[in-house]
Structures are given as structure tokens and as C-alpha cells.
């Protein structure tokens, strides 16, 4: 009903956004946005900014819902949580960065932070904590009831392994991993990297030896830790979920937010393996028939990445960190860091030189 009153989102805006976005641009924009978030934190953490942001985002969101294609995918019942995640994450990042900025200023002046001032004061759990919890539970219950009343849980056709939907997608919280399948084979994207994510998270308390910033918000005292973690969480996890859910259509092709999911869209794939580059293009000879010889350049690249780069970085970039952490902690840290960087690196290689695999031994399902 309301939709009749609101003018539709103008075509030129839709065309501009659809035309602008494709995987490369999407990722570049999210990285630039991330960098700006870190860099200009004292600017956007002001009160009016978040108000303006939310006003703009909400208006634009509802306005976009006048577009059928946008509504179809974003309004899908199981995709609604992503919208909730987006807005709550935006708000809480604002809360956290605001506290960091304020505390950092206090630290600069040699004054105690907000939390330092309050930590020595102890208050009774009843009522201070219990009431807060009670309030949070009530708000959460109300949200759930409203959500449950107005939005029916989806139930599609009965299960059938014969009728394959296109695209077939995992649940939304795994779509960052599914998006990773574009760049890495299942054994890496679906098994090894998830395992490393879990192990990397578990390792964090044992490799972050910085005693500062324990129990209070600060950015300045933990620059590297916070930037790295947030890059992983925001850019490599959340934005890839948004990409995988909203912008990947049939055959996992990319579609702008207002574009029709045309199942017949064709995208040319002419990706090249590293071995082909080395032997065919650079050395001008046929691929060796011996698999190990054929993939030697790839193996050397991977070995260099994980064995040569760490000491190099220790001497050039992470000098102080290497001294503070010691050999084992530093190696662990750098290993997980390089694994994390492997995704954006492969993306860039794919986009710039159409690189498919660094090591390609499909005979044994061993492609990197």
C-alpha cells in the first residue's frame, strides 16, 4: 500500500550502482571503506554521523525495496538476518570506535580512560546488572515476537535431489566460505581455511603479547591487532557474506543489487594456471609431462610464500614484533596472517592476470 505512494527508485541510480559493481569493484570498495573507517575514526564517530548514516541507509534501503529484483533477494525470509547483522554491526562499530577515540585522547593527555575511572567502583549486581539484563531480554523478546508474527518461516517444495536449484547456496552464515570457492578449491575453501580460521582464533590470546588494552576500549595501543582482526571479520567475512548472498545469482555469476537474475548470463572464463604461464609463455616450450616438474614453479611459489616471506618480514616490517614475540609466536602469527592474506592475494591475481591455480594437479585433487 505504502509502495504506491512512494516513487520508485530512479532507473539511473539503479543503473549506476549495477554498472559500477562487479566482484573486483565490490571488493576494492569494501577495502577502501575499511581503510577509511580506520583512518577517519575521529571524524565519523561523532554523534550526528551515525544519525545521518542510519537515516540515509534506512531510507535508501526501503526505497530500494520498490525494486522487484532487490526485494526478491534481500526480502527473502532467510536473508533478513543479514540486514539485521549489517545494521547492528554498523551501530556497534560506531559505539566501539567512539569509545576508542575518546579513550585514546585521554591516554594522550595522560589521563585515566573511561573504564579506568569506573573500574575501582563496585556496584551491587542487584539492581544494576540484573535490571540491564532483564531489559535486554525483554527487548530481545519483543523483537523476536514481532519478527515471528510478521514474517513466516520459509517452506519450499518437498526435498528432491533431482531438482537442483540454481544457484544452490549454503545457509547465509557460510556464504563467505562459498564465495571463497571462486578462488580456491573445496579442499582449501571448505576444509583447510575454515580449520585455520578456528585455529587462528584460538591462537590469538597466545600470540598477542601486548599487555595494554586489556579491559578497556583503545585503538592506539593495539593498532595492529585491531586492524587485522577487523579486516578479517568485516572485509573477509561479513562483506563476503553479503556478496555471496545478495549479489551471486545463477551459476554463481555476479549480479548488481537491482539486476534481474538471468540464468543464461554467460561469463567467459579464460583463466590460466601458473605452470602454463611459466612454460608456455615465458619459456616458450611445452608443458613437461612429469607432474612434479610441471608444477615446480607453483611449489616454489608456495614454499617461498610460507618459508621465505616470514623471515623477510621479520627483518623488514615486523622487527619490533619479532623481538617481542620470539620465534615460535612470531611464526604462528605470521603463518595465520599469510593464510588470511592468501584470499585477497589470489583475488587480485585472478583479476589482474587471470591466474587460475598456482599449483594445479587435478589428477590428485591438489590445486592451490
Amino acid at each position, binding site marked *: 500500500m505504502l509502495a504506491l505512494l512512494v516513487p520508485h527508485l530512479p532507473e539511473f541510480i539503479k543503473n549506476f550502482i549495477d554498472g559500477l559493481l562487479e566482484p573486483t569493484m565490490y571488493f576494492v570498495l569494501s577495502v577502501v571503506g575499511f581503510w577509511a573507517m580506520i583512518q577517519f575514526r575521529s571524524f565519523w564517530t561523532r554523534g550526528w554521523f551515525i544519525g545521518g548514516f542510519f537515516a540515509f541507509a534506512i531510507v535508501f534501503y526501503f526505497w530500494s525495496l520498490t525494486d522487484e529484483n532487490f526485494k526478491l533477494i534481500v526480502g527473502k525470509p532467510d536473508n533478513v538476518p543479514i540486514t539485521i547483522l549489517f545494521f547492528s554491526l554498523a551501530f556497534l562499530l560506531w559505539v566501539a570506535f567512539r569509545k576508542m577515540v575518546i579513550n585514546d585522547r585521554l591516554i594522550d593527555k595522560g589521563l585515566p580512560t573511561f573504564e579506568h575511572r569506573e573500574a575501582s567502583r563496585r556496584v551491587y549486581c542487584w539492581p544494576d546488572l540484573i535490571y540491564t539484563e532483564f531489559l535486554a531480554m525483554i527487548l*530481545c523478546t519483543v523483537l523476536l515476537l514481532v519478527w515471528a508474527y510478521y514474517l513466516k518461516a520459509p517452506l519450499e517444495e518437498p526435498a528432491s535431489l533431482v531438482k537442483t536449484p540454481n544457484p544452490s547456496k549454503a545457509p547465509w552464515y557460510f556464504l563467505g566460505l562459498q564465495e571463497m570457492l571462486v578462488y580456491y578449491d573445496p579442499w582449501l575453501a571448505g*576444509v583447510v581455511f575454515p580449520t585455520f580460521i578456528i585455529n587462528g582464533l584460538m591462537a590469538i590470546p597466545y600470540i598477542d603479547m601486548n599487555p595494554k588494552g586489556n579491559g578497556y576500549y583503545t585503538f592506539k595501543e593495539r593498532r595492529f591487532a585491531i586492524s587485522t582482526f577487523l579486516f578479517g571479520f568485516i572485509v573477509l567475512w561479513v562483506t563476503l557474506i553479503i556478496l555471496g548472498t545478495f549479489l551471486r545469482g545463477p551459476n554463481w555469476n555476479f549480479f548488481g543489487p537491482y539486476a534481474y537474475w538471468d540464468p543464461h548470463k554467460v561469463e567467459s572464463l579464460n583463466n590460466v594456471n601458473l605452470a602454463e604461464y611459466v612454460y608456455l609463455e615465458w619459456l616458450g616450450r611445452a608443458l613437461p609431462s612429469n607432474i612434479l616438474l610441471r608444477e615446480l614453479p607453483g611449489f616454489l611459489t608456495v614454499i617461498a610464500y610460507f618459508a621465505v616471506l616470514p623471515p623477510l618480514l621479520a627483518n623488514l616490517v615486523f622487527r619490533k614484533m619479532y623481538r617481542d614475540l620470539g620465534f615460535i609466536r612470531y611464526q604462528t602469527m605470521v603463518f595465520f596472517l599469510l593464510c588470511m592474506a592468501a584470499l585477497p592475494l589470489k583475488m587480485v591475481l585472478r583479476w589482474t592476470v587471470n591466474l587460475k591455480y598456482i599449483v594445479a594437479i587435478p589428477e590428485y585433487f591438489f590445486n592451490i
Partner: protein
Amino acid sequence: MSLMKFITDSQIWKSIFRHKYPDNPRDQALAVLSNVFLHLHPIKVRKSGVRMSFTWCMGGLTFFLFLVETITGVLLMFYYRPVVEYAYNDIKALRDHVPIGIMRELHRWGAHLMVITVWLHMLRVFLTGSYKPPREFNWNVGVILLVLTLLLSFTGYLLPWDQLAIWAITVGTNMARATPLMGHEGPGAAFIQLGDVSLVTAGSDVRFGLLGSKTVGAATLLRFYVLHCIAVPLGAGLLIAVHFWRVRKDGGISGPM
């Protein structure tokens, strides 16, 4: 007023509550101490730690949602049979025959919300540096809870047995084929042989173990049902107990030393 007094002076009331209205230190302490649920809390806490802007209440909400899921889940179990012949129709009946039925919705949206709150909880713990000593171990308990939360959500996704369910689980579990050495399409699996017989096949690899068959089928439905309703919640419940115990033992919600 006198009715109120009559009630609070009665033997029944006094047998339940061992303290007066908590508006003074003694009764405030007793209110927390003499209640098995509230006594998860200490009597006093740091002022900095009780602020909603500090913890975002996300850990607490995750736990609350876990309880919501338990209650709504038990109710759903009354009406749901994890058998291919019935599963879909049971869910459909919930939709078609229950006026203003929202139990399934509460359970499903609650599950999604729990995934979100657990991520945001982890984010806040990271941003406040609360994983640093002495809380390293509790962070690790948390990471396992994170995995269990995702597993709970994932195993539950199959149960409606519709197209959405079966294909999401198919796509998700297809990855397991590619497990190094242990999946039949994983690197190195071809080398695991006994004589000429290869040991890792579609009928013996980890994916088979997970699904109970070569494709998502009746065995998978039962398996995921048991995991979803019994095994994973028990594990998560146990670890939540450990998690809360350690929050207390590690000195309560973190604050500057």
C-alpha cells in the same frame, strides 16, 4: 498495601524468598546469593563492566537465545518426526493448521539471531582485549561455543526437509568430499590404499560418516536430528557452564587492572 503485606508475611512467601525487598545492601546481596539462577553473578561488579555500552549485553543475549531455542525446540519436537515420509508434512501442518502459529518462526529467527549475537559478542570481547591474560582459556571455550552455535544452526537447517533444506546441506557438506586424505575427492586420498583397493571412497569417507549415506537422505535426516536436538545442545550447555564459571573465576567481566 495491606494485601501485599499479607502475602509477603505469609509462610508460603517466606518459604520461597529468604530476604526482604532488595533496596538495601544486605538484601541486595541476599537476592543474588539465595537464588540459584541469579547467583551465577557475583554480589558486586565493576561499574565499568555493567555498562551496556561496554559489553553490548551480547554474551547474555546469546545465552538467552539459547534458552529460547531450547524451549521452542522442545515444543516443536512434540510435532515433528525425523523421518523422510513425515518430516515435511509435519512442518507443513504447523503452518497450515495452527492459527497464529509462531513457534517455528520463533525458533528459526531465534537461531539466526543467535548466530549474529555470538559473532558480535566475540567482536566485543576482542575489541575490549578481554581475551588477554587471565582470560585466554575462556576465549578458547568461546571459540568452541561459536563452532557449536554454527553447527546447531546448520544441523537444524535440514530438518524441514524442503528444497531449501536439502540443498543448503548438500552444498555445505559437499566440502567434506575434499577433505585432505579423508575425503574421496580430497588431495592425497588416492594414496590411501590397501594393495589395489582404495580405502577412501564415496562410501567410506568423512562425508559418508557425516551423512550416513552417499547423498543427503533418510540417514542424514535422522543423524542431523539427533545431533541437533541432543548431542550439540548438550555439548553447548556443558561448555556454557564452563564459560560462565570461568568468567567468574577469571575475575568477572574484564576491566582495566
